């Protein structure tokens, strides 16, 4: 970007040349950020998810769709370390040691990862926020857990993030229970992203919100994904949400992947009979 900023004269011409050749803000990565290999989780005889494999590349948003009970939340739990799969590997490209199987990491290591390089956005903000702690404290917690011990700077960072998720910074000392549902969800996002994570797990992040609030949240998430180069695994049953947010799609049924591909390809030219049914069942507005 420095090169672009330094250009004078005919800015657009030069940018055009540059952007056409090098194509993206983010250099082509060497490898995937997350490699999931044959992840299987059973609940007794019942299958939670079976033999799930995929790669997630830096800056990519992967949508996981399927109806309730299809195993998408189980999969998300296995990937984010909240559930222990019975088999498989979840390789995460750590900053210091390269790809490491997070399932075989020690608990402290995984927790460290979970509060630095990962974000988890729950469907219900109550599950992801401390309802009795102020908005600023909620956002600042990750920083303090990471060793930040300067009140002024923590507050500054919290305030900056409230601004980025469009919450009036004057409400920094208010508790989340005084916020609307949409604000709570945005606060949860700020609380997670303050540490500059590289991977976000999102479980129905727009579920339970009014349609107009959903739109604003979707736009916010799109901007954050773009500006931070964030990768995300987005679990939802809302096909409209994945169409707008996800680059790629995984369609799950009965714990298994039935179809994967480019989001608009899966939605517009679905191959599997279940996907065709899913797509044709969406109400048109």
């Amino acid at each position: 970007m420095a090169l672009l900023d330094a250009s004078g004269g005919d800015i657009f011409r030069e940018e055009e040349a540059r952007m056409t050749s090098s194509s993206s803000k983010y250099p082509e990565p060497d490898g995937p950020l997350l490699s999931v290999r044959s992840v299987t989780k059973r609940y007794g005889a019942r299958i939670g998810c079976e033999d799930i494999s995929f790669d997630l590349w830096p800056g990519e948003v992967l949508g996981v769709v399927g109806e309730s009970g299809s195993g998408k939340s189980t999969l998300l739990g296995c990937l984010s370390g909240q559930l222990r799969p019975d088999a498989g590997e979840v390789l995460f490209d750590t900053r210091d040691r390269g790809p490491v199987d997070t399932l075989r990491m020690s608990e402290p290591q995984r927790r460290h990862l979970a509060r630095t390089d990962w974000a988890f956005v729950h469907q219900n903000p109550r599950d992801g926020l401390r309802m009795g702690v102020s908005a600023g404290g909620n956002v600042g917690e990750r920083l303090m857990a990471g060793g930040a011990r300067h009140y002024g700077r923590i507050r500054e960072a919290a305030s900056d993030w409230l601004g980025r998720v469009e919450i009036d910074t004057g409400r920094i000392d208010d508790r989340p229970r005084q916020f609307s549902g949409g604000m709570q969800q945005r606060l949860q996002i700020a609380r997670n992203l303050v540490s500059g994570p590289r991977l976000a797990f999102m479980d129905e992040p727009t579920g339970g919100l009014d349609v107009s609030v959903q739109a604003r949240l979707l736009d916010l998430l799109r901007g954050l994904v773009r500006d931070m180069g964030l990768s995300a695994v987005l679990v939802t049953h809302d096909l409209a949400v994945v169409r707008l947010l996800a680059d790629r799609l995984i369609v799950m049924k009965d714990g298994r992947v039935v179809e994967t591909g480019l989001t608009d390809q899966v939605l517009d030219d679905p191959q599997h009979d279940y996907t065709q049914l899913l797509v044709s069942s969406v109400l048109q507005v």
Partner: protein
Amino acid sequence: MIEVQNIAKEFTLHNQGGAVLRVMEGASLTVAPGECVALTGASGAGKSTLMRMIWGNYRTDHGMIRVGDVEVSGAKPRRIIALRRSTLGYVSQFLRVVPRVPTLRVVAEPLLVLGMAEDRAEARAAELLTRLNIGENLWSLSPTTFSGGEQQRVNIARGFVHPYPALLLDEPTASLDAANRETVMRLIEEAKARGAAILGIFHDEAARERLCDRQIDVADFVPGRGA
């Protein structure tokens, strides 16, 4: 720049007893840089299907499609995403955007994704919107509330905001008045002049005559008629 070799397409409708619809076969074409090629044929003959296959929106089961140095048929999704980001533009007939995002943002987004600074991307978007007669008072509103013609122009602005080396245009001049139609044709001519390879569907005969170097009748690709 755009190369299509002997492709075929069929849809299997699992929810209708597994019926297989073969809609295209033996389709081949090339579009060179600086060239504008029109797809013609009756509606339903497969013009949009072919465009969507090149865009990567429909899967290519048989044959080969290449745009620049990317083989679209069989490419990994992220290769197609990268291709769409920097190389291949598409002006469809429908505007699909996140509701409540202002028009200026919608148009600037392809540049933001490529990493251009916000103020420059928006300046560029503003320039195009002005040329396409979208009043400045509308820029801060979401295009989802606009009329059909306005939406179409926003869509065109979004498709031309980045100088893609290859462009797919689906009825770019439909539902436009004379002045705007003229602007859009100028934009297409400028794109040609800078070396873009353009493949389009133009029902507007005058536009086709003025812009296109060649025409390809997709009726030739309808199964059974054979070419």
